[in-house]
């Protein structure tokens, strides 16, 4: 008898395997369906209004016409200031947690808080931002207050991404350095950071895309309904794309249907471009891996 003959049980196994493969594949395809539908709807309904003028002119006629430049500019300002606040804090905290902290109750408490901070709903962050930054620190409703709120909200993302990329550097490298009489900082500075910077930057870019879309945290802390002026400094208020979209869709009568779709298209494009940049960057750096 040929030991490689197909038997009954063999056929059943094969059929089951094919079935599960199909099932898993369907689920995966289901994932991209919402993305495709959203993008197609936005492009179909709002694509026609997104022009150069739309991007770079002010809203007119009680926001029922004209462009979105103040909102676009405001979002860029908010994101930039949020990054300036959250990246140094987040990266430093991650380095401490990954490279210095010993495993004790305090570290575990900090880790737990980070996880919890990531789980706090954004409207709660907004109220915290009002209490802490607008009132207590007396930033008023300003870009600074809104950005700080965004920064607090996105800190967990930066910390977790940074810590993971630090820990992807093999322990053996650190031990080799320590054995040569290097201090922890010398080891971090010369070996760990140069080899994890790609992961850290990827985390930062992902954070940017998340920050750009948030509405609740900036609503009470620094973003405004409408202002004819561009912000002159971090203590000014500003429009923002996400809030602008919310306002156009729900608060302003007589807005042409295409307008909010156009704003949404711009917003989601920013997010997609940032994410693609992050993925491309990661692929580029992975090609240059050093071990």
């Amino acid at each position: 008898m040929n030991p490689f003959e197909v038997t009954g049980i063999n056929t059943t196994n094969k059929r089951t395997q094919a079935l599960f493969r199909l099932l898993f594949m369907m689920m995966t395809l289901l994932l991209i369906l919402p993305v495709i539908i959203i993008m197609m709807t936005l492009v179909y309904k709002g694509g026609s209004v997104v022009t150069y003028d739309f991007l770079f002119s002010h809203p007119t006629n009680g926001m029922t016409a004209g462009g979105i430049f103040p909102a676009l500019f405001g979002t860029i300002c908010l994101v930039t200031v949020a990054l300036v606040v959250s990246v140094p804090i987040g990266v430093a905290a991650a380095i401490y947690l990954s490279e210095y902290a010993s495993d004790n109750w305090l570290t575990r408490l900090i880790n737990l808080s980070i996880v919890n901070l990531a789980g706090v709903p954004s409207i709660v962050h907004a109220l915290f931002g009002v209490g802490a930054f607008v009132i207590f620190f007396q930033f008023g409703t300003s870009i600074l207050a809104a950005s700080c709120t965004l920064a607090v909200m996105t800190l967990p993302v930066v910390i977790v991404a940074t810590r993971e990329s630090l820990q992807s550097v093999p322990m053996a490298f650190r031990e080799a350095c320590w054995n040569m009489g290097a201090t922890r900082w010398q080891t971090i500075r010369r070996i760990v950071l140069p080899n994890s910077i790609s992961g850290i930057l990827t985390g930062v870019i992902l954070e940017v895309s998340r920050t750009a879309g948030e509405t609740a945290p900036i609503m009470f802390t620094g973003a405004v309904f409408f202002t004819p002026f561009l912000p002159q400094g971090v203590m000014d208020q500003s429009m923002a794309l996400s809030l602008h979209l919310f306002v156009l869709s729900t608060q302003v009568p007589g807005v042409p249907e295409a307008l909010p779709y156009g704003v949404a298209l711009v917003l989601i494009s920013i997010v997609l471009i940032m994410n693609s940049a992050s993925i491309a960057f990661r692929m580029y750096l992975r090609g240059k891996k050093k071990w």
Partner: protein
Amino acid sequence: MVATDAEAHATSDPEAAWHQRFDSAPIEIEVNDLTIRYGETTVLRGVNLDIRKNEIFGIIGPANSGKTSLLKALNRMDMFTPGMNVQGRIRINGCDIQTVKNVYALRRSIGVVFPLPVGLPLTVFENVAFAPRLGGVKDQAELDIIVERCLRRAALWDEVKDRLDSLGSFLSGGQQQRLTIARALSQDPNILILDEFSIAVDPVTTMRIEDVLKELRKEMTILLVTNLVQQARRLADRTAFFLNGECVEIGMTECLFTRPVLDQRTKDYIEGRCG
């Protein structure tokens, strides 16, 4: 070198030969009643040994016998190992290492080679220049000299001299292990510790490294932990046998192999019956 070797091995009485060579030599490493615990687990119990200057001291023993823990204690790497508790006294060159003020200088005086080669993700040149740079050497010409000297002594120079700018972590395993040795030498150490350096290295490279060690013994004390019993026989002046955290026996290497040993367990291990 050949002469010393021949001298050591040709003498009918290895014990007498050892005393002749090392009796007047100062003690480089002195370990007194060393006990190491990880939490509840004791991995090393009451170990005593002394290693003379310019001696090659072999340590053999099966896995989990506490060899690597001993090495970690020697250069205070227990500071970086959570839960590792070291008791007892270790003196290096007469100084109690628990009380030395500058542990970084202590570590620089001890070169360590790991079981698996660790080429840092730097260029070949920077791998070897790393320790001198930590020590404050900035002058490029001086670094060039140090790097070439260390690579030559590790028998790697001829293979890498045209690609000092390529990544050290991309060299072959055997080359990386010699790079590690060059890096250890760049610290200008008094003591060289090798922890099973040959497990990831081909036999030819192993023999080349052994030749390097025979050269280096003139200048430094070498502590050789090895899982190859015959390697200890080829290189070590004295050999200690560790089993389950105990130092079972320390003896002249030749005596361990050719004469009745003190402990039956040593004989069993050397002949491959236990461990």
